[in-house]
């Protein structure tokens, strides 16, 4: 079932495609931007990917069945688009790279990770999570959203979100410990 946010967006799109699409862009662009930028680590690549993502959203909207949350659908497009880009551009590393997303070092089980290392391990750990858990984790951990807001975005109950987040945290910590 669609959340109230999605219902409004979907209705607007059906009445006026252009206005609906513009509203979808303005609603989700920033969250999707940061999701991509954590993976690409620079603005220019992020901008290119984000443009492609929303072009695909525009092309895909007439076929969108509204069976999942609009954010989840865009998140999936963005994830795939970024993964494809990184695979292609692996050899062409950008010289302008963002600082690590974690600024302190971490010592665990006698092993010390630099901020750069733990940032990379964290992103690798997120990439191993099922899609729903990855979405919930990123919205809660990086975007600092409350469960209520995440529920509105993903159309999932708060209880379900808490369970997803808890499982995601455990898996990530396990991943880090095994490095």
């Amino acid at each position, binding site marked *: 079932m669609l959340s109230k946010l999605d219902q409004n967006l979907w209705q607007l799109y059906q009445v006026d495609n252009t206005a609906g699409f513009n509203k979808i862009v303005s609603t989700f662009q920033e969250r999707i931007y940061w999701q991509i930028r954590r993976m690409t680590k620079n*603005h220019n690549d992020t901008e290119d990917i984000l443009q492609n993502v*929303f072009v695909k959203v525009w092309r895909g909207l007439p076929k969108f069945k509204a069976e999942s949350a609009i954010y989840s659908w865009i998140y999936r497009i963005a994830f795939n688009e970024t993964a494809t880009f990184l695979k292609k551009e692996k050899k062409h590393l950008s010289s302008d790279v963002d600082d690590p997303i974690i600024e302190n070092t971490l010592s665990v089980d006698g092993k010390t990770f630099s901020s750069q290392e733990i940032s990379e391990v964290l992103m690798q750990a997120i990439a191993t999570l099922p899609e729903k858990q990855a979405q919930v984790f990123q919205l809660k951990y990086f975007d600092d959203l409350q469960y209520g807001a995440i529920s509105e975005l993903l159309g999932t109950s708060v209880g379900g979100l808490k369970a997803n987040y808890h499982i995601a945290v455990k898996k990530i910590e396990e991943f880090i410990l095994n490095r």
Partner: protein
Amino acid sequence: MEKRSDILNRLTKAKRPTVPASFFETFSDEVWQLILLEDETDGFLNDLKIKRFKNDLNDPQKTDLKYVIVSGSETPERQKKSATIRHLSLWLGAVAASVALIFAVSFFNESQSQVADTLSTEEVLLAYLDEEDLVDYIVENSAETETDSVALLNEYLYEEMEDGLFEYYENL
């Protein structure tokens, strides 16, 4: 001793990197530009595909399908683009024809000058004589043209022999 659990709480998230000013305000315009650009490119490619399709499609059973696809593509904008392509093709065709014509003319002139170089005025005029006159001309000329020394000597000897024989028979 370091704790094994609660790892994420021990991590300090860095501040988000900067984003160019008013990036999010203008982003949807950039997306629209890209969408329109892709639409234009797709339109151009579709025109080419349809043209090719029209050329390939000769099966009368498919006429209806051809009509549907072609008529569906003929928006005024696309008509304008196909007209541009047609003009371009015509222009290229005209250039190619001009180049071919220049080559043909220069080749023809060259051939003509070669003919003029090799044929004398006399030979050209001979072309207008009828067969009988032509034979007479050749016979006369070949007689006149035997002007080398051996031929003259032979003629002299024959004349001498002829005169000698005439005197011999006269004095008998």
